[in-house]
């Protein structure tokens, strides 16, 4: 655009020179002035700051990181610049995820991975981040557009799961990356079948988390934290499955359907409860068809609640990554009463997720080492402080006992009840122990035969 405008000035100049009649010069000069103004406007519109190599703490107006680096001077964060080493995956770029992505981008996070399969709609405009002119774009595309403008230092990877699988397919069919790209552009996304809850989408999700191209020296997976900002149970269970298998720490966030409460939760596989450890309250009350007619699916949402939850989520993320303050394992938000409950949840030894049980076992095995490290840290801190016994005498030999031991050793004694007492509810069923081959199982046990039998029934 700028080059075009410059050419225009040149043309006007030559026109002015070739004109014998100088009476028109005044109007040509006026035109030239207008073009120059346009050039200035175009320049300011596209002014995108260049990348910054090192984060500086210099307090000047032009430094995008001066206020963040001031956290070090204030003694809150020891080394803020470490944030550029971290990768965060955000699953679900909706009301919470998009705002969290913007916050992390403004904080100068190293790399963001964004996952979504949805498009921006006008119905999203009651929430933050997306703009009306982005309606119709995929949420990941629109987010990358905005975020790259805000902070070009962040490495952004958008993973529109549907696009990726489709691209691969197209490349196989047509060959050539450019052509595949064109094809996905032309297609309107009428199909939403491939998301992370499907087998194919899940594999794409897992492999993108494993990818360590950003920081090859990092241990474990390729990301430091996964943030789940999805709006449904199925997707949360899929994130839970992936993180349990990869031993990946993640944070879950949610806003209630009535838009007035929300929560965030830290999930460390094996160490804290996983998402499947404490299933959502199963209200198995009878519901008849009238209820179906009465209630709509459309959930309420507020930019305020979503903004608060995104803020809590990213605050916890920063504390976790940059190691300051206390990382909350669960923080609720009830906006009607402005009540913020916190709690810690231990993993469920009867969790239905096999990967969670494996992580729990590893966690129990690693406990002595972890305790020793914690103790050493405590002692190091204590030695710097002045040592003094709290009580000079201890007549009753009272001592503090660690009560955070997992029940591995005392599992049997914990189950045993005093005489005369019984558990009201039975233990969870162990399905592996009771395969219970029913009488019908004796009939046919071949998959193809069964499939043909159903096809035969379907035929007539």
């Amino acid at each position, binding site marked *: 655009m700028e080059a075009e405008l410059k050419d225009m000035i040149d043309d006007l100049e030559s026109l002015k020179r070739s004109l014998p009649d100088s009476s028109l010069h005044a109007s040509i000069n006026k035109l030239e002035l207008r073009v120059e103004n346009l050039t200035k406007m175009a320049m300011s519109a596209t002014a995108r700051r260049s990348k910054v190599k090192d984060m500086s703490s210099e307090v000047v107006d032009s430094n995008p990181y001066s206020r963040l680096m001031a956290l070090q001077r204030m003694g809150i964060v020891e080394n803020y610049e470490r944030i550029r080493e971290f990768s965060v995956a955000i699953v679900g770029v909706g009301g919470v995820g998009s705002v969290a992505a913007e916050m992390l981008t403004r904080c100068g996070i190293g790399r963001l991975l964004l996952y979504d399969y949805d498009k921006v709609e006008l119905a999203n405009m009651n929430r933050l981040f997306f703009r009306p002119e982005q309606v119709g774009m995929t949420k990941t595309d629109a987010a990358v557009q905005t975020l790259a403008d805000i902070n070009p230092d962040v490495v952004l990877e958008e993973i529109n799961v549907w696009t990726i699988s489709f691209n691969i397919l197209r490349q196989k069919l047509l060959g050539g990356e450019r052509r595949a790209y064109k094809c996905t552009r032309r297609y309107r996304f009428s199909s939403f079948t491939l998301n992370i809850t499907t087998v194919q989408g899940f594999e794409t999700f897992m492999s993108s988390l494993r990818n360590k191209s950003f920081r090859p020296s990092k241990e474990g997976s390729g990301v430091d934290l996964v943030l789940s900002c999805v709006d449904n149970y*199925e997707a949360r269970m*899929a994130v839970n499955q992936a993180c349990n298998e990869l031993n990946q720490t993640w944070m879950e966030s949610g806003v209630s359907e009535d838009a007035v409460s929300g929560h965030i939760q830290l999930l460390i596989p094996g160490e804290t409860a996983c998402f499947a450890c404490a299933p959502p309250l199963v209200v198995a009350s009878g519901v008849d*068809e009238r209820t179906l*007619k009465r209630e709509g699916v459309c959930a309420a949402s507020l930019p305020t609640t979503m903004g608060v939850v995104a803020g809590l989520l990213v605050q916890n993320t920063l504390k976790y990554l940059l190691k300051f303050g206390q990382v909350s394992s669960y923080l609720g938000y009830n906006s009607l009463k402005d009540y913020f409950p916190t709690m810690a949840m231990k993993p469920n030894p009867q969790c239905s997720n096999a990967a969670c049980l494996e992580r729990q076992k590893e966690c129990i095995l690693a406990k002595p080492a972890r305790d020793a490290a914690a103790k050493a840290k405590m002692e190091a801190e204590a030695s710097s402080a002045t040592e003094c016994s709290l009580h000079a005498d201890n007549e009753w030999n009272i001592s503090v006992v660690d009560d955070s031991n997992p029940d591995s050793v005392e599992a049997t004694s914990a189950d045993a009840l005093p005489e005369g007492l019984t558990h009201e509810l039975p233990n969870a069923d162990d*399905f592996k122990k009771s395969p219970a081959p029913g009488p019908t199982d004796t*009939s046919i046990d071949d998959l193809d035969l069964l499939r043909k039998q159903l096809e035969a029934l*379907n035929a007539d």
Partner: protein
Amino acid sequence: MEGWDPNTKSTLTQIPLLSTKAGPRDGAAWTQRLKEEYKALIAYTQMNKSNDNDWFRISAANPEGTRWTGKCWYVHNLLKYEFDLQFDIPVTYPATAPELELPQLDGKTQKMYRGGKICLTVHFKPLWAKNCPRFGIAHALCLGLAPWLAAEIPILVDSGMIKHRDDVSGSSES
């Protein structure tokens, strides 16, 4: 289960329950689960046919049995309304229920999520969660889709959102 009509209840008791807790990524265990799914579906289809209440066709669209496609229909005022039916088996199956989709009705009713996924949240998900892993695809159709069709199709027809195919073709021919 209180609140359900006696017909659905008695039908449900006759659909064989499943026992293998396995999802599509569990290899041989998934094959075993798939066999149980087929057995339950066969029994349910046979039962529907013998009770003159045949209302769906469903079959696996891939060899792994992770995607299913078919048809379902509902009779309202003596007219039959038929719809495409499709769903994927989620990776976390059977902890999470399949999300049944009627793509042709996408955008026509509020009781539906993006892409034509019918809303199962209130009337079905709690039952599924409580009966995991004993419920399978057949149960999802019986307790999830059937009541949804019974509740929604009459409203969609009466409000003119969907038209019977005879009416549509008749108007286009004239």
